[in-house]
């Protein structure tokens, strides 16, 4: 089963952080408090969009052909994603400032 990393707290909807990491081979465990990378904070759909974007060398025209969507639809999706990334970055910055 392909498990999804939970990124939002089910209780307060805040951004979750990683408490411990473990090596599956020797079971060495590292404990601490690690922030999730920005990309993992995005939804699965947004992550797939970014993968498609990279695979198409950043060409929105190629992406629209490949995904069978119109050019403005793809461009709108990218613009919304950029706005969302800016928002997440601001939130991460604010959280760091609070610590």
């Amino acid at each position, binding site marked *: 089963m392909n498990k999804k990393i939970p990124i939002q707290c089910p209780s307060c909807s805040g951004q979750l952080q990683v408490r411990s990491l473990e090596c599956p081979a020797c079971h060495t465990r590292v404990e601490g408090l690690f922030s999730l990378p920005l990309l993992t904070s995005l939804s699965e759909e947004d992550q797939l969009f970014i993968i498609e974007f990279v695979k198409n060398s950043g060409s929105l025209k190629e992406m629209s052909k490949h995904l069978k*969507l*119109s*050019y*403005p*639809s793809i*461009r*709108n999706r990218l*613009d*919304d994603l950029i706005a969302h990334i800016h928002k997440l970055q601001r939130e991460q910055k604010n959280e760091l400032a609070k610590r």
Partner: protein
Amino acid sequence: MNWRRDKAIWYNPFEYLAGYKALLIGLGLMVLASLAGTLTQIWFPGALDLKVAYEGSYGVHLVTSVLSWLIVVAVLYPLARGLSSSKIRLVDMAGTLALARAPQLVAGLSGIGGLSSKAVNNWLYHITEELQGAIPMDLPGRLSPVEMQGWEWFLAINLLGLQLLTIVWMTALMYHAYRVSANLKGTRAGVSFVVGMLIAEALSVFAILRLIVPLLQAGS
């Protein structure tokens, strides 16, 4: 093509079709709608208008349609540029707005047989007769009534209802064309579209009065 996509094609095909493709299809449909309108006496003068029982040449129908579409594009494109933070392409705005006028073909075809034109002609005749009874006046080019059976009235009213629906459908398509091309959402998209369409409507009616009517007068 899946079910969701099939359904969306009727009210928002612009998620899948825009740019030059939409422009070519839209212009092609505009040419056909003007032809159908000429044959069935249904005219599309203005951003959102439909007039029944209008006898005009194909040239007048086509020029009016193209001019009305161009005015809508000329109003909505700069409005979208001013409001949206996205990079908007003129070809997307022009193409999607051209394709959004596709319901005009359905409206044009719905006039086949001239039933809706006959019904409107008879209504206008009765209205002018009643007006003349109340206020004596000398109206130029008076209408004459056309005989219609009960079933013809029934069909004509349904066809007029269908023509009204095509205007609603076209408005919905134009809104989605504008929203998708400009990447605008919510209140900003709705309010700017309404304001833009009101301006486009006023401008198109003015342009038609200044361009098409003199053209008609020069031709007659």
